[in-house]
């Protein structure tokens, strides 16, 4: 049997989930991540594998309705079963073949082990079990992880990273053969969502993170984030976009951008689209239009022309109105009369926490530090190692 995740890009990276392995979706508590497991289960149900989906904090009827909402009619398949830990908890008799009272952890553990014997792929929401049954239930979870290996089955789990004790997080992290982190790109509020493979022990895979949207019907869909590159006329936006991108295109008239620059960049596992806006005021409507669904802003300023800073501030304000995080690229640092980043901060009245990166776009100096600074704000403390990132709450 070949078990896959059914998640875009992920299957290209890991090929399959081998028998005896556990894949955990490690979900940020503020992100709708349950759909990943649903998509994985449905994909394998469609392939004819016997799959079981465990629910504990949501009624089985609601789960089936959610599957349907994504266009996955699992109840039409005989090889799909719900494991109902919800009904008895809220005081209703369960109408499902596999059910138990979650307040009796031994009963739950026994049931899940039986289900594991009978099915090829089983989904268990680990953190929900911990939430309802208490932290002690981690020993039951541990025994199930071990049984998966012994029996050669595939376990899909979800672990919502609430502030649990480190010990619990370590057990789940260590026992999972693969971990897919599902997180939010945040700047005061969550502006976008990503998933990334942070651990896999059966294949040497380079880390990759993918931005996604949920589509109903459809499920998880990868998408390319839009980063705005803005700044006053002649600040060097087009030069920056071209210097940093793998491929780039500008719509120019007599050497000045009149529509927009577009560049595409593959960097540290991210696919990024850069949109450079024209600097002249008459094009400001384009700026506002692009700002609505962008994820972040790079403000390029000419470090030698402080007289353009008020215009730079004005452009910044019109896009940060949408709550977007931003970094400042202090361009033309190779020129002798360039102001230092701190002088620019003072003249532009920028807060201390706004990164101002000295660059020379024409010489390609410092340009990737700008991307790094913005990614750092957007996705937080991703620490790239050999083939995994540090998992944090």
């Amino acid at each position, binding site marked *: 049997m070949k078990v896959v995740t059914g998640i875009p890009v992920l299957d290209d990276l890991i090929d399959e989930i081998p028998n005896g392995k556990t894949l955990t979706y490690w*979900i940020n*508590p*503020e*992100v*709708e*991540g*349950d759909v990943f497991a649903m998509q994985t289960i449905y994909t394998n149900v469609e392939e004819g594998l016997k799959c079981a989906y465990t629910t*504990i*904090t*949501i*009624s*089985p*009827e*609601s789960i*089936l*309705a959610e599957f349907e909402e994504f266009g996955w009619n699992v109840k039409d398949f005989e090889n799909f079963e719900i494991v109902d830990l*919800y009904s008895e*908890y*809220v005081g209703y008799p369960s109408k499902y073949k596999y059910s138990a009272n979650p307040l009796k952890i031994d009963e739950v553990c026994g049931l899940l082990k039986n289900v594991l014997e009978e099915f090829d792929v089983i989904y268990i929401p680990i*953190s*929900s079990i911990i*939430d*309802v049954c*208490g*932290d002690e239930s981690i020993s039951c979870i541990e025994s199930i992880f071990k049984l998966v290996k012994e029996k050669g089955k595939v376990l899909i789990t979800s672990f*919502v990273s*609430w*502030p*649990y004790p480190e010990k619990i997080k370590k057990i789940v992290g260590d026992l999972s053969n693969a971990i897919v982190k599902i997180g*939010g790109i945040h700047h*005061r*509020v*969550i*502006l976008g969502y990503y998933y990334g493979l942070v651990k896999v022990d059966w294949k040497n895979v380079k880390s990759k993170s993918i931005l996604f949207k949920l589509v109903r019907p459809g499920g998880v869909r990868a998408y390319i984030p839009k980063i705005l590159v803005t700044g006053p006329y002649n600040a060097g936006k087009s030069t920056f976009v071209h210097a940093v991108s793998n491929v780039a295109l500008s719509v120019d008239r007599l050497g000045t951008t009149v529509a927009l620059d577009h560049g595409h960049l593959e960097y540290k596992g991210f696919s990024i689209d850069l949109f450079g806006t024209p600097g002249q005021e008459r094009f400001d409507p384009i700026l506002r239009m692009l700002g*609505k669904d962008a994820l972040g802003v790079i403000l390029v300023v000419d470090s030698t022309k402080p007289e353009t800073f008020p215009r730079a501030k004005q452009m910044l304000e019109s896009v940060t*109105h*949408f*709550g977007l995080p931003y970094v400042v690229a202090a361009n033309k640092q190779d020129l002798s009369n360039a102001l230092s980043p701190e002088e620019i901060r003072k003249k532009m009245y920028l807060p201390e926490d706004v990164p101002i990166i000295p660059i020379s776009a024409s010489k390609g100096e410092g340009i990737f530090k700008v991307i790094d600074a913005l990614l750092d704000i957007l996705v937080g403390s991703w620490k790239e190692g050999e083939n995994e990132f540090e998992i944090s709450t």
Partner: protein
Amino acid sequence: MGVQESILPGVSLKKGSNIMIYGPTFAGKAMFTRTMFKKFVKAGYCGIYVLTRESAEQFIDWFGEEYDSNTVKIIDCVTKSMTGDAKDTEAIKRETVMNLTGISAKINKFLEEFWRKGNRNIILVFDSLSTLLMYLNLQTVFRFLHILTGRVKMTGAIAFYIVEEGMHDEKTIVTLKQLFNGMIEFKEENGKKFVRFVSPFTKTDWLEIHVDEGGVIIT
């Protein structure tokens, strides 16, 4: 974050505040909170109301003609528990009360929507934490609130969380209090209802209130 919003005579809240609404059953907590929520919305705030005791439709009925789905968003944790196939709308999201991840994600979706539209004045009401504590243990609810109160602080919203007096032990109340900046406390004496504000820095006198279906009047 310097903006202050008045909730009781002489009491203003800073943006990013998380406030517990605490008192015995039928003391007027829910109506007081709703009236305050409506007042904030009328003053230009965008609102998120998390309901665990009645449906979104019942809440909208109470809100009346002033209800605007662009500015008032509801997370209904009642209907989905009763019927599995209740549909969501742009302004109403249904969730089961035990699914804290679902509630948390939905609150964040609404915050994102307001934020992207340039709305920075946001009020959140969670009615009530006592319902959560009926289904889930204190530790689990505490972890959920730890994340939520942090998000409220970060976005500069103002949030109120209703807790029933007498339903929980002392340890539960003390644990929850750690998460909040202050408390609006209710009491009932000789058939009269009273309210006061308590925080580490202030404690107001008890103020008498009159409660009916339309709202609350402070006398």
